[in-house]
């Protein structure tokens, strides 16, 4: 128990330290409310995908979701193509936005179900299954758009959702936090979450203990798909356009965030709050680098080092040094 708290505190501290260091060396602009809002509104795309990866990892059995960003893009593209057929965005922007979101969620649900079924019923390892669906989703997106990006145009409600702060908090960030909160609640406090953790810790024992393993796996990856489609809506809202290869660098970054957040890649353990804190820490760090005009290559280097350092910190036994000398 104490161990868990240590990690949360550690990540929270990183957030605060980076933020303060930023304010100190990058100037007051870094800490003003506008920049905080910008950083907050940048977190959800990646954060949602990282939550999906975390969930897949927790379910165990080599769980991972490589198809997240591909599904997010496909959701956005399909939703736009269908919704703009049904409703003219300019005429009824609100109705358009809602139907856009609804269709995107349906696509995410379908894609997640496909992942879940592939993994639960064919015995395909998640890595290969989601690699296959990643290509499939990307491929469909390319086919639908002929490879070019699709511009949504300026649709006020969507744009507001992506960028407008309400009471100082960007809407999409608020949604992200709410989703993360719900997910955290689901994992920690509900029978589903406890079963998922147990399933990830020992699949056979979970089956013998009456956990409906396949249903759980399908459900888990469906949630991952839904998270991806929400990310798709956020992307569409913020970029004002959708394209098949948007965020192609996100696949590995999402895994990075999940692992930085302390999710055990072998399954059975992970905390949503930590994943959230890892996502914000990475965001603040990367914004800081942009503020300082530090090369983006160097930022990637820093992330790699951070990941290894975090893995190493789990290996270092602090009590070894804290023990008084004999």
């Amino acid at each position: 128990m104490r161990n868990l708290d240590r990690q949360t505190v550690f990540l929270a501290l990183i957030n605060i330290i980076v933020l303060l260091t930023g304010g100190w060396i990058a100037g007051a602009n870094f800490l003003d409310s506008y920049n905080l809002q910008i950083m907050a509104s940048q977190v959800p795309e990646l954060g949602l995908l990282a939550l999906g990866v975390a969930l897949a990892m927790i379910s165990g059995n080599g769980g991972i979701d490589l198809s997240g960003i591909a599904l997010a893009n496909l959701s956005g593209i399909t939703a736009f193509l269908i919704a703009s057929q049904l409703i003219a965005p300019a005429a009824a922007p609100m109705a358009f936005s809602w139907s856009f979101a609804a269709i995107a969620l349906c696509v995410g649900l379908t894609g997640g179900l496909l992942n879940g079924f592939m993994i639960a019923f064919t015995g395909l390892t998640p890595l290969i299954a989601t690699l296959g669906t990643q290509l499939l989703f990307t491929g469909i997106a390319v086919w639908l758009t002929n490879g070019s990006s699709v511009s949504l145009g300026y649709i006020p409600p969507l744009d507001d959702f992506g960028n407008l702060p309400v009471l100082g908090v960007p809407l999409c960030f608020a949604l992200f936090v709410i989703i993360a909160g719900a997910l955290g609640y689901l994992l920690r406090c509900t029978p589903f979450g406890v079963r998922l953790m147990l399933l990830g810790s020992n699949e056979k024992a979970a089956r013998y203990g009456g956990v409906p393993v396949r249903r759980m796996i399908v459900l888990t990856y469906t949630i991952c798909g839904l998270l991806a489609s929400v990310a798709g809506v956020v992307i569409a809202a913020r970029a004002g356009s959708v394209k098949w290869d948007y965020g192609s660098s996100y696949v590995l970054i999402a895994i990075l965030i999940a692992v930085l957040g302390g999710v055990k890649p072998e399954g059975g353990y992970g905390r949503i709050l930590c994943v959230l804190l890892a996502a914000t820490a990475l965001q603040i760090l990367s914004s800081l680098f942009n503020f300082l005009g530090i090369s983006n290559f160097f930022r990637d280097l820093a992330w790699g080092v951070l990941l290894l350092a975090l893995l190493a910190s789990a290996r270092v036994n602090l009590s070894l040094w804290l023990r008084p000398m004999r």
Partner: protein
Amino acid sequence: MTETSLPIPLFTRLRALTGRRPELFTLGLILLTVLGVAIANPNFLAMNNVFDILRASVVRGIFAMGVLVVLAAGGIDVSFTAIAAFVMYALTMLVHNVFPAMPLWVILPLAGLGGAAFGVVNGLLIHSLRAPSLIVTIGTQYIIRSALLTFVGTALFMNLPASMEAFGKASLWTWTGESGVISSLPATVLVLVGAAFATWFLLERTLMGRAIFASGGNPDIAARLGFNLLHIRLFVFGWAGLLAGIAGIVHVASNRLANPFDLAGMELEIIAAVVLGGARITGGSGTVTGTLLGVLLITLVSNVLVFVGIPSTLQLAIIGIFILLAGTIFALRSRS
């Protein structure tokens, strides 16, 4: 229960055979694909096509040999493309700037050495951090690639050393089609043959090979039986790095340019090829023959779509479906 001595049905026997020799299944898929494409477009069986597919398989194949060894030992490596990029770019620059006359037989071993050094660091980290190799190599991939781009260089590099230029152009056999188009079997194929043979020898004829499969089957037990896990990991990732370094140079030589942005994002596709060749992603199995077939299969599928007349916008989706279907059949087969 006593087994009845009824003649075993053909299907069951076939299944038992592919259970023992999963690469036969891969071979079957290849034959099916070739047959399908040849029916759709008989031109496909022309010699220049065979050469082209071989040529396109070389770099993938060399990488895949390294990945096979890592998978067999129960690990996953996604940093090898970054290692290859680093080695190929840094070494090409070094040779060009300092020893422009360096012959190929020095360059290739140097590349191997450089790659192996990175790989050994991977192995060391995985062993000492006791973390899953997928995660550790994601970290090192970031570090290696961005170190290359931050500290070594980012620009496309066209002035290859003469020996590499010649190696890229060398051909084992040239064939002139009726239209006067020349196609040639590149000499780089020899590197793949060498890498495959060395990997086969290593896996099947040395104690290290057995140790690799042993640690892939169950590392704790292997350690108890006296196999030194640290040595195995250092070797396995070192081997993957070595082959990656060599593959990088082959890539540069045959492309006749060194682009530090190249090869990124290829890693998962190569892992998929090895898995389609019958190696389990959970470790402890896999063969060189199967891996070569897996690479051939992936190259084939990504190269024949034009021949069948599938528009290029559908290619990604088709390859995805193919991986899902083949993977599923594989998974179902090995489960029964």
